[in-house]
């Protein structure tokens, strides 16, 4: 944790410097007759972020924060596995939206989570993976009139069928 705390503060300090540099694309000072320039607000706030990171590093050096005093690892094996399997599942879910549509991605994500991570029965897994996307389709496309991404062309027959059903 101790090493993680200072590494994270260092990363955030670098990001703050990047934001300061990006803010300088617009004027960061006071322009007579126009007020503060467009970069004024983000520049000084990014500087605030940088100074906070320096204060965090100072507290780390003095051992003031709980993480700075801890020699434990950030996460044990279970923690890393959970984050990779669940977080990876969410990344896969979003990546699949452009291929199999929002509803297709929901069905696949639910199938993956319920069957492989939750170890639920086939009946529950398949039931939820099919029923929930259909209900969400009816709510978003039918009631709320919000169109979701439809993925690649091969999903069209499904959408045609569903649109026939709601209109």
């Amino acid at each position, binding site marked *: 944790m101790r090493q*993680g*705390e200072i590494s*994270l503060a260092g990363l*955030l300090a670098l990001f703050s410097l990047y*934001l300061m540099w*990006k*803010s300088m*694309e*617009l004027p960061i000072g*006071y322009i007579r007759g*126009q*007020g*503060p320039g*467009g*970069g004024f*607000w*983000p520049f000084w*706030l*990014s500087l*605030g*972020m940088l100074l*906070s*990171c320096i*204060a*965090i590093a100072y*507290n780390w050096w003095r051992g003031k*924060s*709980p*993480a700075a005093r801890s020699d434990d690892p*950030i*996460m044990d094996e*279970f*923690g890393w596995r*959970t*984050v990779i399997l*669940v*977080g990876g*599942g*969410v*990344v896969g*879910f*979003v990546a699949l*939206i*452009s291929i199999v549509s929002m509803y297709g991605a*929901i069905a696949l*994500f*639910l199938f993956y*989570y*319920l069957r492989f991570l*939750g*170890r*639920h029965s086939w009946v529950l897994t398949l039931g*939820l993976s099919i029923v*929930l996307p259909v209900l*969400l389709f009816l709510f*978003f496309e039918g009631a*709320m009139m*919000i169109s*979701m*991404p439809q993925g690649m062309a091969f999903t069209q027959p499904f959408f045609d069928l569903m649109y026939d059903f709601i209109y």
Partner: protein
Amino acid sequence: MEVLSFLADGLLLSLQPLNLMLILAGVTVGLFIGAMPGLGSVNGVAILLPITFLVPPGSAIIFLAAIYYGAMYGGAISSVTLGIPGASTAVATTFDGRPMALNGKASLALVTAALASFVGGTVANVLFTLFAPLLASVALSFGPPEIFALMLLAFATFVGLGGDDIPKTIFSICFGLVLAAVGFDTISGEPRLVLFEISGFLRGIGFIVLAIGVYGIGEMLWTLEQTRGEVTTTNPKMTIKGLVSDTKEAARKGWRGTMIGSFLGFFVGVLPAAGATPGSLMSYGVAKMLSKNPKAYGTGIPDGVAAPEAANNSASTGAMLPMLTLGIPGSPTTAILLGGMVIWGLTPGPRLFANESEFVWGLIGSFYVSNVAALFINLAFIPLFVWMLRMPFTILAPLIFVLSIIGGFAAARSMHDLWMIVIFGIGAFFLRKFDYPLAPAVLAIVLGPIAESTMRQSLLLSSGDPMIFLNRPIAGPITVIAIILILLPALKLLRRKKAVATA
């Protein structure tokens, strides 16, 4: 007395069968839309606006106001049950609402939210009825320096009362404010902070993207990792008796927060451009500051739910005031309502009360009826929301992920924003591991645009002199209180050191 007779007419009008039916339908629809992460009253009102052309203007606005009311009640539901604030107004509700749900007190949290919302709405309605024209003129005296001072106060409450690591809290606030500046500079119109030259950032980063990332993805990963997947959020009390005992407990333990939220929320809501989000946050901060046991806030206490919930309902009613009396919308939802009124051929502004008396009092009457309807409909659905929490976490967790992603898309309509949700979620998980508070960042991204524009306008007014925030009669005291709150942790530290030195 004249006011009471107008109000009686308004109440009778809103109790007519068509209007009453529209109120019940609007509140129920609003409740469910508000409970959905990513969708808030603004979505409900905007989507259903065209439907209102089928009924007379008086009934149309009653329907839309009922949706607004329902959604305000509904916002608390996702904050408590899913831990995701459905709208920015419900961010402060997660601070204690979520811990209560995790402690098995979900139904108490939901009942407290419903009761506090009801009281907040009622107090606001009474204040609205009695003082509408007077308050409108007070609100007008709030210029950019006063609004900026209020924003400063909202952030100062986090630093002074947060109890978290101060540098990390300040980092979080600054980070949220910088994220709010991504996109375009609203004054010069030039692109600003287009990070890594990715064109998606030209659209800016919306509140909902950060909120869903932090609370929907990050918080869920954190909960799964911390509890090893064995989360217990259930509450077996789902009977009428359970609801009655929760109601009694909520009234006993949440009255202080409710009272603070009801009054403070209304006055903040009345101010143009302020609205329910700073209102709910400030009420939470003030309730904590005035509490005998401020450390209990954030661990799951009814007062911590009651204060922001009473405030956001009260402020929502308050926000109607500048809309009706001055024609200035205080929030995106009231802006759409205002648009609706213009389409129906009404002119909002000082003459509305005189020229369209029946319309205005019908609407005010409907606030009272909608508030009562929302309370009962909300209480009736609490068992359903609590039942949701009884699901095994291996079913609830993927449902929350799905609702977060689909809700995030519904709000932003862009794949770029969905990827940002995922990045913020994973980033938030690691920041949380190292005790960075993230609620300040979420609130900062909401208040950032208001804070920046009012700060720049103020400095323009004063030709760059920052004393404008101190030497005006209203802005001055607010700024001084904010500065004291920011310095509070340092003062406490000094006092402790002095005490140690003398001991």
